[in-house]
């Protein structure tokens, strides 16, 4: 008697109700291979998507797209989103969603702009701008630890920082900040400064999250704060660190934006959160915390910049870019969910088969 098997190679009962062991080493290998492939798609799918987009636009938008000059443009456009997204991603990975990011960026920009406007040294403006990010992150973290919902807390600090930015700038923009061009439009070895800044930030944060004890713990806190606490680690401290990194990135992005347009603006643009969240979600960072990869977030930002660049080069109506991004986002979320469920089902089926038949 042969035993019918499911499509995934699982054991199913025969018509007389008896189950027989399935001689399935080949099926087992096929299972493992398909699971490995699915996990590869989940973890590296964003890279595949980006490469596909690059190939598509290289053909469609020839000859202007596939040029080194254009690659630099894409990287430059992605760098700002990437810096914001790095902060959002680190926050989400450790279980906090920081909505104060636009306010912190505006405040850091205006404080720096005001100092430069009053002929203070550039280093002082930048340092104070970044320090503001750290302080706001600390405040967000410490308040949240007292049992307040982090989303509400950061909405509060978004309002406060936006208001303070508008007050210190008097409601006006501060133009003519050409002292910051060295980190805005200036190029080093042919690559614009924002790209170097984003690259340095991502390298530092990736090393921190993956190679240091503190970083690994920070990710663990996002996955299961209670388990981390029971293992004797001070989980609250890591949540505060998550807020601080998030705000620091926002302040840095605010300063880079200021350098790019040589103007400090007190207007906090909530749109930056959505763009950053899109890059983060495309990168497959779990919104539940505990799982995510910063290099993938960088590629998520590059995907957004590539779509915008390619469509603009082709002269396509800009509204299409927004729509395509939304479709990609929903598609990637659906794919991620489908893959996760399929992998889980197959692994469970394999485990059950192993338990009940002793063969697998």
């Amino acid at each position: 008697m042969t035993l019918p098997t499911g499509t995934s190679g699982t054991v199913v009962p025969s018509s007389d109700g008896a189950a027989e062991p399935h001689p399935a080493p080949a099926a087992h290998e096929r299972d493992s291979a398909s699971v490995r492939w699915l996990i590869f798609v989940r973890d590296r799918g964003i890279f595949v998507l980006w490469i596909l987009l690059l190939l598509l636009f290289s053909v469609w938008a020839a000859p202007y797209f596939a040029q080194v000059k254009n690659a630099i443009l894409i990287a430059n456009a992605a760098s700002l989103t990437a810096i914001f997204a790095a902060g959002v991603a680190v926050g989400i990975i450790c279980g906090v969603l920081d909505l104060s990011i636009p306010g912190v960026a505006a405040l850091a920009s205006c404080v720096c702009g005001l100092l430069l406007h009053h002929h203070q040294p550039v280093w002082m403006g930048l340092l104070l701008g970044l320090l503001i990010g750290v302080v706001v992150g600390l405040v967000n973290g410490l308040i949240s630890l007292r049992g307040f919902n982090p989303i509400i807390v950061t909405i509060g600090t978004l309002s406060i920082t936006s208001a303070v930015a508008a007050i210190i700038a008097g409601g006006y923009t501060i133009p003519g900040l050409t002292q910051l061009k060295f980190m805005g439009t200036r190029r080093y070895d042919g690559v614009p400064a924002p790209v170097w800044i984003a690259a340095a930030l991502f390298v530092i944060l990736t090393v921190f999250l993956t190679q240091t004890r503190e970083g690994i713990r920070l990710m663990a806190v996002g996955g299961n704060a209670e388990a981390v606490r029971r293992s004797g680690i001070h989980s609250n401290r890591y949540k505060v660190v998550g807020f601080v990194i998030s705000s620091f990135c926002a302040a840095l992005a605010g300063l880079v934006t200021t350098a790019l347009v040589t103007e400090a603006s007190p207007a906090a643009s909530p749109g930056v959160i959505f763009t950053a969240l899109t890059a983060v979600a495309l990168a497959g960072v779990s919104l539940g915390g505990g799982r995510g990869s910063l290099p993938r977030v960088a590629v998520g930002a590059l995907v957004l910049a590539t779509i915008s660049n390619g469509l603009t080069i082709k002269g396509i109506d800009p509204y299409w870019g927004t729509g395509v991004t939304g479709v990609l986002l929903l598609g990637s979320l659906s794919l991620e969910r489908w893959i996760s469920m399929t992998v889980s089902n197959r692994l469970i089926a394999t485990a059950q088969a192993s338990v009940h038949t002793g063969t697998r």
Partner: protein
Amino acid sequence: MSTRRRRQTRATVGIAMVAAAGLLLAACTTSDGDTGGAKPAVLPKTLVFSPLSLAPPALKGLSEGVKAYAGSKGWEVIVQDPNFDAAKQTQQLNEVLDSGRAGAAWVIAVAPQAMGDTLKAAQAKGIPILVNGRPDEYGYSGPQPGITFDYIDYTAAGTALGEQMGKCINAKLGGNAAVLYGTGAAGSAGKNEIDAAAKAALLKTAPNAKIVSTIIVTDRAQSQTDIGNALQGNPNIAGVMATNDEGTLGALGAYDAAGKALPCAIDFGGNDEVLGDVKSGKIYASVALQFQADMTQSFDTLVKMQSNPKANGDVLVVPAKVVTAAG
């Protein structure tokens, strides 16, 4: 029922009665005010200024200008900040109109179609009101008692924008040029009118010029990025005309980053930075809205209306002027 319980009950009933009496009194007072409907003998010299928001520097500047100008005429100015929220704007306006403090109101409406009740309330109380936009945007077919309309003529502005681009192309580029057009987001005020007029005027003034790329301008950094991308696809773009300052300034940044010169940059808006760039020759021309002149004509109209708030108000146009390096 225990003595303590009876005391608590009596106290509760007492508080409820006092509260009810208070509400009744307040209702009567409000009712009196409403049914009276007649304008106060003398309207206070207090202007309520309600812009879209105070976040945009141009509106912040306008509010400061209104305060200074009205202050110099002996008026007090109450500045509101609806923060682009139509419901908040009407609520804030209704509150101040009901309070009796307002002697006149100047409103840059977030949603003109939502202003109907507020306008009627102002008319009923005899408080002159100036709103930005044309009568039809508020559901009227023409001038209305106690209401002055003040609008930007986007068709005229678009025509000036396209003409200036055409003139620049004819003068500097021999009449041939690829042009990038930076326009506002869908649904932004006057978008259809200014887009159509600018394109028609460009075609008429420089028939061989061609718009090869269009971008939506949201903010300066984004427009700088988008124009850089467009420049990659169309390296020959020699003219940029934008329907706002952020688009034109973003274009200058994009060309600067690309190490290229932009022979023809035309702007609509005319903030201080743009006017500085016009003077220095980086921007060929700006169709500059004359907010200072508009502010004085608007305020003076409101003051005039106070003497006869039942008369039909004016339909004003925000003055605009083409500014070039020559002046």
